[in-house]
């Protein structure tokens, strides 16, 4: 049965686990090349619409991205740009009155024997058995509000035990070399005290002090950071292939945030799971992600590996986002912001939706032509008319561009642009 051919296939399917370097050892970061890893999740032209009283809001409009095994994909964007809704769509948990209007989300589910089952998550019944077997077991999620993410009447241990029992038999021994894995191997008929053991092991793993006592702690005994650790413990208790972290540190203070991020990095190294990291905090995403998808108004506007994004942002929106990070040692009277407001969802601008706020708006073009999502450099995708090859002779575009065709990092401010 074990022919060399099938064996190599299994080998090929094994994810490359990225080794995150300790920042002190080496400051230079090299992008993790994970493009050889097998695809885990494929979001393809997904459209999510909310039918509200005033019409239909296209919360996510033809969004596509790919998550590979062991990869961390960061999704960033302003509030209301569709980040969270996208993550809910992956779980097939779109809140009413929203619905998935088109596209597909293919989940390449790795099986224990090395084969891959392909499931279109969008097609599954939202409350059906199949999706419930995937939720928690294959794709787990942690939320923004750790203060209210635990049911107040149950202890931390109960929560973890519940997640494990819901996916009985799912947890298999893996070569992670941690003591509780042996405990849960083939967890059919998991007993109460066994579940407790696993819960304690899990809490120890997420770095909760005195796990033997904290396993009986109720949510109100725990601080925000501790609750988030418990949440992570629940999410990881079934060893998911994909973890969706929806702004997991937004509600925490900065020192706890650093601990939680460190913990997630560590667990990712240990388990080799992929992470979709949703945030609007650029510092956090720089720390965490291998690849970043920038969203604006339900569309991805730029996608590239983290280092290139921060060094060579190509979309004016990304550039503006990066410009708005305050810098230490640089005195400014006013912090940089992106001018204007996110447009009214019922009354979207014509052409490129970002053009009313864009510093590089080209009149007669940006407000007319809808930009295509294009790979402008190797593995660097963006949706901007400045990179539109069909109109390279535009004087304004030319003036702004560097010699190699990219647009410069330091952009003139809006006033400067107007004076020019």
């Amino acid at each position, binding site marked *: 049965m074990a022919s060399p051919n099938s064996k190599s296939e299994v080998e090929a399917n094994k994810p490359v686990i990225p080794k995150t370097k300790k920042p002190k050892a080496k400051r230079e970061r090299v992008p993790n090349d994970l493009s050889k890893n097998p695809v885990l999740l494929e979001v393809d032209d997904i459209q999510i619409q909310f039918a509200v009283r005033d019409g239909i809001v296209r919360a996510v409009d033809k969004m596509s991205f790919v998550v590979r095994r062991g990869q961390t994909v960061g999704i960033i964007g302003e509030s209301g740009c569709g980040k969270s809704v996208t993550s809910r769509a992956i*779980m097939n*948990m779109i809140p009413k009155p929203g619905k998935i209007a088109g596209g597909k989300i293919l989940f390449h589910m790795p099986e224990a024997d090395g084969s891959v089952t392909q499931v279109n998550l969008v097609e599954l019944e939202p*409350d059906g058995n199949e999706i*419930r*077997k*995937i*939720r*928690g*077991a294959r794709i*787990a*999620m942690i*939320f*923004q*509000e750790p203060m*209210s*993410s*635990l*049911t*107040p*009447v*149950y*202890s931390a241990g109960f929560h973890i035990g*519940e*997640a494990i029992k*819901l*996916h009985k038999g799912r947890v298999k021994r893996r070569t992670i070399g941690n003591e509780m894995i042996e405990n849960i191997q083939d967890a059919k008929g998991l007993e109460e005290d066994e579940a407790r053991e696993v819960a304690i092991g899990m809490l120890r793993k997420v770095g909760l002090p*005195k796990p033997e*006592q904290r396993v*009986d*702690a*109720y949510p*109100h*005994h725990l601080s925000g950071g501790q609750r988030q650790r418990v*949440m992570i413990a*629940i*999410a990881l208790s079934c060893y998911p292939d994909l973890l969706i972290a929806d702004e997991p540190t937004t509600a925490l203070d900065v020192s706890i945030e650093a601990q939680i991020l460190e913990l997630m990095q560590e667990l990712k190294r240990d388990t080799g799971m992929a992470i979709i990291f949703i945030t609007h905090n650029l510092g956090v995403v720089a720390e965490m992600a291998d690849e970043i998808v920038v969203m604006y108004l339900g569309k991805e506007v730029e996608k590239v590996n983290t280092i290139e994004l921060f060094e060579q942002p190509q979309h004016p929106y990304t550039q503006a986002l990066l410009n708005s990070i305050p810098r230490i040692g640089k005195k400014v009277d006013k912090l940089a912001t992106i001018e204007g407001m996110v447009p009214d969802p019922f009354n979207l601008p014509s052409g490129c939706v970002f053009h009313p706020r864009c510093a590089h708006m080209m009149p007669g073009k940006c407000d007319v032509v809808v930009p295509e999502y294009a790979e402008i450099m190797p593995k660097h995708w963006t949706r901007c008319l400045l990179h539109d090859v069909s109109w390279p002779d535009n004087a304004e575009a030319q003036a702004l561009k560097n010699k190699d065709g990219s647009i410069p990092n330091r952009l003139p401010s809006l006033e400067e642009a107007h004076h020019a």
Partner: protein
Amino acid sequence: MAAVAGKFRKPKETKQVSQSYWSLVWWKFKKNRLAVVGGIIVLLYYLICMILPGFFAPYPANAESRFLQAPPQRVRFVNAEGNFSLRPSVFGLESEMDMALRKRTWVVDPEQRYPLYFLVQGEPYKALGFIPTNLHLFGVDQATEGATGFLFGTDRLGRDVFSRIIYGGRISLTIGLVGVIMTLTLGTVLGAISGFYGGTVDLIIQRMTEFLTAFPDLPLFMALSAAIPVTWPSTRVFFMITLILAFIKWGGLARQVRGLILSSREREYVLAAKSFGASDYRLLFKHLIPGTMSHVIVISTLAIPGMILAETALSFLGLGLVPPTVSWGVMLFEVNNVRTIHFAPWLLMVVPFIVLCVLAFNMLGDGLRDAMDPYGGK
């Protein structure tokens, strides 16, 4: 080095016990004295009336005697010589014809003195429904000819009112408890489903509760009770009455539970539980309903006296339970005319018992309401 190490002794390991929600509730409840008193009274009621009525009542509920409408025999602490004695006793009753009223009345005869004994042998009964015994908490010596101890007098058939209050309490409290449990189950489940699913289900259940609450209570009671066949045995009537009460009263609870579920289903922990693969059933019964329990317990504690009063009202009107069943309402039914109240006012002795019971339940419920929110307030 050893000296330095000694200075920084490791702090003693303290065993930290996590206080569960309920231990916090208990801790706060204990501090509310009025509620504790209410709780003790309620427990006493249940002990006396429901668990051991035969022990506390000196006579069986329907034991008739020749002393018709006898006034209460006061407990006196005198001996045969008329001096103070710790042994309580009652004076005998002598029948006398009141010529002005042309009515037989009873007068106290100090010549006859019947001492009261504790833990006395008396009428046989079955304790807890299965242990045959004849031990009573107190009573007169059965061996003495004609000895009676009617502390609260007797009714028109010569039955001991005190014993009947205890036996009546058994039925009335059971109706309160069973009725509330049924209300609770019906109200919580329907309210929770209504709030959780929303839409058409919600619409149907809400219109149902509105329909029920729109009816004036009393005519609805009357109509439903009138539907009970008169030929039915008293136990079945009793359960039907309980059912009717529960059926009418669930609407209010259902609405409150629905409101609670509506607010808590949007909480992140529901979403989180769902994201771990919990089914709707699990979300509803494991994550949402337990959260409403503190509220439901308070509501039901406060609803029990309502149930008891409803039974009383119904039976008083002659529409609820009927003799030979003894309940507080049935006892009140016997004092539904001025003549009886005038000549046998002691039959109203049941009223203070009802009042005390209702008050105790309200005190308990109020205390629970404060205690169920251990994080807020003082």
